[in-house]
């Protein structure tokens, strides 16, 4: 399952996102070039308003760029129709959001298999079982989201993202609402997914401790990439963050 690390799973070229017009114009992304290697765990960091979430949303096909290009594998998604884009999200990408990741009327299992159901695909039971086992949810599959703890809900979300065997998983502050124990659990699952399954993950976070789980950290400020770190530690990240804030 492991892919050569030099392969690029997703990349943005000259990604520009401008909100508003004239006097109220705000440049959220000012021509960002970035690549996310396959089988890599990348963290995107930056202060509030740095454009990190916008970058994630645009690369993940949830939002459209004002100009520039985004590639998922070899597919250039900025030119896709709404319908094609939806299919890319459904079939090639996985998502973990900060909160409200699950459809409250569906059970944990139904949530995990939701993208497959939406696609009308048959479910790869063996794979789902393995993913479910990995996140330790086997006994909770028939529960509804309201019957699960916050940490468990996020684990279901991770399982859903993995169950789809996506090219890339995008995680937007996946531990933002969790206590530290549940947080590190989730981050370990993500780490394991990269190490054991060769999964590509891109995660937005503002927490150095979380970012330290990644292989690489990209720093964003005022809509531009200002720095990056490979094999980061909590300390080295915290140092960069401080220097960025000055």
């Amino acid at each position: 399952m492991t892919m050569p690390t030099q392969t690029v799973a997703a990349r943005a070229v000259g990604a520009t996102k401008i909100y508003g017009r004239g006097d109220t114009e705000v440049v959220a992304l000012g021509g960002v070039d970035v690549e996310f290697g396959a089988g890599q765990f990348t963290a995107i960091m930056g202060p509030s308003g740095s454009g990190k979430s916008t970058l994630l949303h645009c690369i993940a096909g949830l939002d459209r760029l004002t100009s520039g290009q985004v590639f998922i594998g070899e597919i250039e998604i900025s030119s896709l129709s709404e319908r094609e884009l939806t299919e890319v999200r459904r079939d090639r990408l996985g998502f973990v959001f900060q909160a409200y990741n699950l459809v409250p009327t569906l059970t944990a299992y139904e949530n995990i298999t939701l993208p497959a159901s939406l696609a009308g695909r048959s479910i790869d039971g063996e794979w789902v079982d393995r993913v479910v086992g990995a996140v330790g949810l086997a006994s909770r599959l028939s529960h509804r989201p309201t019957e699960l703890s916050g940490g468990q809900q996020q684990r279901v979300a991770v399982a859903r993202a993995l169950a789809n065997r996506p090219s890339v998983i995008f995680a937007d502050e996946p531990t933002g609402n969790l206590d530290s124990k549940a947080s590190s659990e989730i981050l370990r699952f993500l780490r394991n997914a990269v190490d054991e399954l060769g999964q590509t993950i891109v995660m937005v976070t503002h927490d150095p401790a979380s970012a330290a789980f990644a292989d690489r950290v990209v720093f964003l400020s005022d809509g531009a990439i200002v720095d990056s770190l490979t094999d980061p530690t909590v300390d080295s990240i915290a140092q960069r963050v401080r220097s960025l804030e000055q």
Partner: protein
Amino acid sequence: MWKVSWRGLLAHKARFVLTALAVLLGVMFITATYVLTDTTNVGFQRLFSTVNAGVDLQVRAVDPIGGSTDGPGDSRPAIPAAVLDLARSTEGVAEAEGLVFRPGVSIVGADGEVVQQLGRPVFAVNYVDQLDLTPYSIREGRAPERPDEVLLDSNSVEDGDLTVGGPVDVIFPTDAGRQTFTIAGVLSFGDQEDFSGAQVAMLETSRAQEVFEAVDEFDFVAIAVEPRADIQAVKRTLASSLPPDIEVLTGEQVTNEQVAQLDQFIGIFGWVLRGFGFVGMFVAAFIIVNTFTIVVSQRVRELALLRALGASPRQIVGAVLAESALIGITASAAGIGVGYILGSFIQTLLAKIGFDPGGGIDPVLDIRTVVVGLSIGIGVTMLAAVVPAIRAARTRPLAAVREVEAVTAVLNWTRITSGFVAALAGIAALLWGAQAGTRTGLLAAAGGALVLLLGTVALGPLLARPAAVLLGGPVAAISGINGRLARANVARNPRRTAITASALMIGLAIAMAVMVLTASVIRSIDSLIDESIAADLTISDSGPGGFTTALRNDLRDVAEIGGATAVRYGDRVLVEGKGTEVSAIEPDAVDQLLRLDTEGFAPDVFANGGALVSAELADERGWQVGDVLEGTFPKNALASIPIAGTFRVQGFMNDIVVSIETYEDLYKEQQDFFVLASAAPGVELDALRLAVEQRIGDRYPNVDVKDREELKDQQRQQAMIFLAVFVGLMLLTLFISILGILNTLALSVIERTREIGLLRAVGSHRRQIAFMVEWEAMIVALLGGVLGSGIGVVLGLALTRALQDFQVTELASPWQGVIGLLVVAAVSGLFAALYPAWRASRLDVLRAIATD
């Protein structure tokens, strides 16, 4: 707090638009019916003042029956011509004229067909020198100088393609039958050309009296007093010289009497129409409850903040009620405006098809209309908002800081228990009332129906989940995940689902009940005709009225006819102190042409002034065969009638049946409503029919000849027209309940913004989201449809049973109706969901995710 209400309303105005629209529609309908009936009233008032203009006093016979005056052609006897001479010689009287005024005439056009305007009455009147005392004036031509001359109204002349100086045939509903006249001129009515579409044939006085077998008699005498005479004084003088069975009224009294009679009729008509408006408002109340409940739950943080800042629960209730009041005021005011426009528009349409009582009168917006519209609109809106307001007031200040979860309502067992008890009690009352067959029974049944409806509404939340599973099962199987999500959404908030479905249920239940009743009536008509009539052919007027008695005479020597009888119906009379209706047939018909199933029938007694009495009436009043009944009749004020037998099968007969000869002694007016005929032995039906049509076809274009099947068809058609009109009026309610589904779904979509965003993010196509919403609407609508048709069938069956006394004896199977109704429900649901589904599918993914 008013400021908070106002701001709250403005901030959420989109959410209240549909609520307001529902209220608006209900108020609009109610207003429109008032405008329509008020304008018609004012129109007729003006018309009657015109008719009676110039008449200071009127002399006429006292109604022997009392209180049963049904306008022109009522049961008053004629008065002797001597009364006219007396009036003329009374001091203070300037002019007096004796007038003949009889309905039931047919004018034959140039093409040989009857000139008739949509069920409008056609009158025969007499010419008098003082035309000022009548509403007529001669517009063209001259007064009739010979007995064979006639003046006609302009409608008859134009529509009949007739010419002044040319011939015209007039058919009288008396022995005179069809007569030919020369048209001497054209009449107009006061300052108007048209008497609201009514037609009139004016004959010379002696001819009019002769034709109506009223020689030396008048129906009334119209009087103008001397310019300076006191009307009341003249009235007193005149009255004192007249016998007690003749009365004198002022022109004003006559006008008021006519207006009052019409008021009553239009009033009933107006209330029936308004009933649909009230049902619509009732349904609108459900929408209001849902909207406020949802909006309150969406604003829980805002309310909690207000509470935390020190607003008391009372103030919160006040704020929510104030919002509802603002909506009620706005919507009712708009509803009154739109209703006024709608009423005026319908008035114009009616005028176009010839019904123009307004006669160019501006539509009337009475202050009462405004008051009723506003009170109902505001009242219903505020009442429906009470429960959501109380719920809002229960918001704890802490809710502001908690994460708001999508509402999952808990079943309220008190409510469900009371709903269950109410439904059972309702059914019990319904069944008891239906079989009791009395007035109290009918009231109990109606009350039971209402309680059953309300009980079902209360039970709704309990039914919503199982219904979602049952009805949603096939949906989920067909459409996979979208269907499953839809089903889950239906079950998610049973209360909301139940209220939405109930709104639809009410309209559909009423429609279903009427469908069952109509189907039963149609089947009853079939068996009624088969069981009560033995004749092969039925001859009847093509309009609603009767026809000339001459027709029966013309058939006497048709060889193909084995037996025939005329059938007459009389106005209500008093028999042994109680109002009763009488029919008349020829003695031979009792055994041959009808299937009365008589008991103790004495043909001799019957033929000589006796009567057959329905077994039911005889039982009720304790009458025996051989008893003599005392009755008060129009012609022969007091009559004694021996009972010549009883009959069990009533069919088309009234409770008392006399012979035609007896009838002629008792009633002033003679006209036949049916002639029944059977073939002579060995004569085929076709031959009989041909012979009958040849004899009367050209001569009486105003009658139709029907065999048994055609008779059934005609009766069925009338029932179907009733059903069509009823269902048409129910569309208002259906439309309001569709608004309800639309509104609830649209609000639910807003509520589920994040969930929908999530679905879109993980790969739901827009189309899939739309389908999900459509399926949801369809399940809710089908729930409404199933409940509605279920209750409707029960109501319909009860209604049918309750009307057994009115000869509705057969119960019809309602399956076709049920299927039709479910289809209507499903389509309504799909239609209602179009906009919410579109909205949901267009939600911006990112905004949906980012919503906090």
